[in-house]
């Protein structure tokens, strides 16, 4: 199917975003209204505040997307919306708007798993990705290693057993007084610091499986920080550098090991933490050394956006996987292996 234009809507956390993507690859508009400055004063994302901002800006953001794409509302073929996982109150704003917008235009509705979107960000930018591939999904709510058979089917081969990588960044940044959001601030501090001057553990590096644990690293960082503070010898930049390196080395080592074990030639990064330059650089270095091809989305498509939602929805559109009008939102991630049955409805019946 050609020239299929899908409006994507994304409100799962602290970005109100709308995008129009053609045929699952050509981005015609990508509008992101970030709430980061608002949440900074609270030291983290406040769900109720996020929901209030979403309902204020949703209509504007969607209207802007059509302006940028120079399209009429009726020119789109479907509306795709993130309905899981995320902050429930935030998800419900985008979902309610998307359902009504699709209904009023008499267009089908497509429900999208946010994490499928993050993975798909790679396919918006690269057309030559070969399968099978190993994909490392790292975000504020998620850390998984996936074995991909094609662009939309995956097997989970490893996951974090406690905190997500992005969550560890946020918690450690807040603890050391760096502020929010943790990822970019730790990265910035690390640039002027040096890893190795203090020592933190590489958790699970010695294990043969592909699971992760970041809670231990977070606690170790906090304990060491408190100890150094008592001695008056703490240096936030060196600590940030060591923390970031300790976390990234495990991510990289496990990903490369998985690629070798499953004999794939391609590695993908996805999710907000894939924007981390240390992760990108070290992964690129190791991929080169192991003769693997590495893909990661550009910075703008790593963090939350609606282009990835509209993009991945193209495949649902082609396969007639539409959602009913009583579609609900869900805070938690269900299995990445299977698409949830309640979003599958082969009729365009509303």
């Amino acid at each position, binding site marked *: 199917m050609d020239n299929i234009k899908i409006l994507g809507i994304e409100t799962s956390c602290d970005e109100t975003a709308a995008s129009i993507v053609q045929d699952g690859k050509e981005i015609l508009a990508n509008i992101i209204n970030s709430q980061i400055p608002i949440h900074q*004063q*609270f*030291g983290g994302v*406040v769900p*109720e*505040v996020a*929901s*209030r901002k*979403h*309902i*204020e800006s*949703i*209509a*504007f953001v*969607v*209207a802007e997307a059509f302006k940028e794409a120079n399209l009429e*509302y009726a020119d789109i073929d479907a509306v795709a919306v993130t309905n899981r996982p995320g902050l*429930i*109150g935030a998800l*419900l*704003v*985008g*979902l*309610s*708007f*998307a*359902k*009504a*917008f*699709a*209904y*009023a*235009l*008499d267009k089908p509705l497509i429900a999208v798993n946010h994490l499928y979107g993050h993975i798909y960000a790679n396919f918006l930018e690269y057309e030559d990705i070969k399968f099978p591939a190993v994909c490392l999904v790292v975000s504020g709510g998620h850390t998984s290693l996936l074995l991909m058979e094609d662009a939309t089917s995956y097997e989970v081969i490893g996951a974090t057993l406690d905190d997500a990588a992005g969550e560890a960044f946020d918690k450690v940044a807040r603890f050391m007084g760096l502020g929010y959001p943790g990822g970019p601030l730790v990265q910035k501090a690390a640039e002027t610091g040096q890893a190795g001057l203090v020592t933190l553990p590489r958790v699970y590096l010695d294990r043969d499986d592909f699971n992760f644990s970041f809670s231990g690293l977070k606690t170790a960082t906090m304990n060491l920080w408190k100890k150094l503070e008592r001695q008056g010898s703490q240096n936030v930049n060196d600590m940030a550098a060591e923390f970031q390196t300790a976390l990234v080395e495990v991510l990289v080592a496990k990903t490369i090991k998985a690629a070798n074990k499953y004999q794939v030639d391609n590695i993908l990064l996805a999710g907000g933490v894939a924007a981390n330059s240390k992760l990108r650089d070290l992964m690129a270095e190791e991929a080169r050394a192991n003769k693997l091809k590495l893909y990661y989305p550009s910075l703008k498509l790593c963090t939350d956006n609606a282009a990835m939602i509209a993009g991945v929805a193209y495949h649902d559109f082609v396969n007639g996987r539409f959602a009913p*009008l*009583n*579609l*609900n*939102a869900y805070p938690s991630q269900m299995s990445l292996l299977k698409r949830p049955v309640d979003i599958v409805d082969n009729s365009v019946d*509303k």
Partner: protein
Amino acid sequence: MLILAIDGATPSAGVALLDENKIYYEEISNFKKTHSQNLMPMIDRALTTGDYTVRDLTAIAVTIGPGSFTGLRIALGTVKGLSLATNIPVVAVSTLDTLAFNLNFNHNLVAVLLDARRNEVYTAFYDASGIYPVPISDELAISPEDFVSLAHQLMVKNNYTRIILLGDGFYPYADFFRKSFNDKLLNIPTHLILPRPTALGNLAIERVKAHSYSDIFSLSPTYLRLSEAEYKLKQGEI
């Protein structure tokens, strides 16, 4: 004229289709199901039962608050989606005004109470002696105790001997209100206690005639309360 009225402000969800002469459709669901699952199918039934589409509407009316934060945003998100897609204008009406309109030509003090949790109610007092309810207080978020003392003051000041309480804010504190108002409290049937989407639609008619519409880009619910985090920030606790 054709008005679609949508209410998701309280645990009940309601949709109605009407004009200035006639009610065509009304549906209220008060089960413990989320408005997210209920509202769109209800809107679809209201329109398709009469062979209408969204484009046939003159305006869309919505209860803008106070009420459940999430419920208000589901209803308003829905209304913004319908309106942006079709350019059908929106009339936003207070949830408390809508509930008060369940009573007319009534010479008792009328109070609307919504459950605001955290030991508070959203409330306003009304003179319902005419066809339209006239508010005689601000919209407030206050404790049941403060509500009772304010009610007593208003009753003395305005010579009311009896009071009627509307809305789901009555139930969590029913015993306390019964004790506090005693035989001054009038019991009314349950069908008057819920917000009626037809009352919402009727309240919107004058505004539609006057072309007094809300801007959907800036429209936001009436919360009456800061979020917990904003409150703490203001108190200097963050």
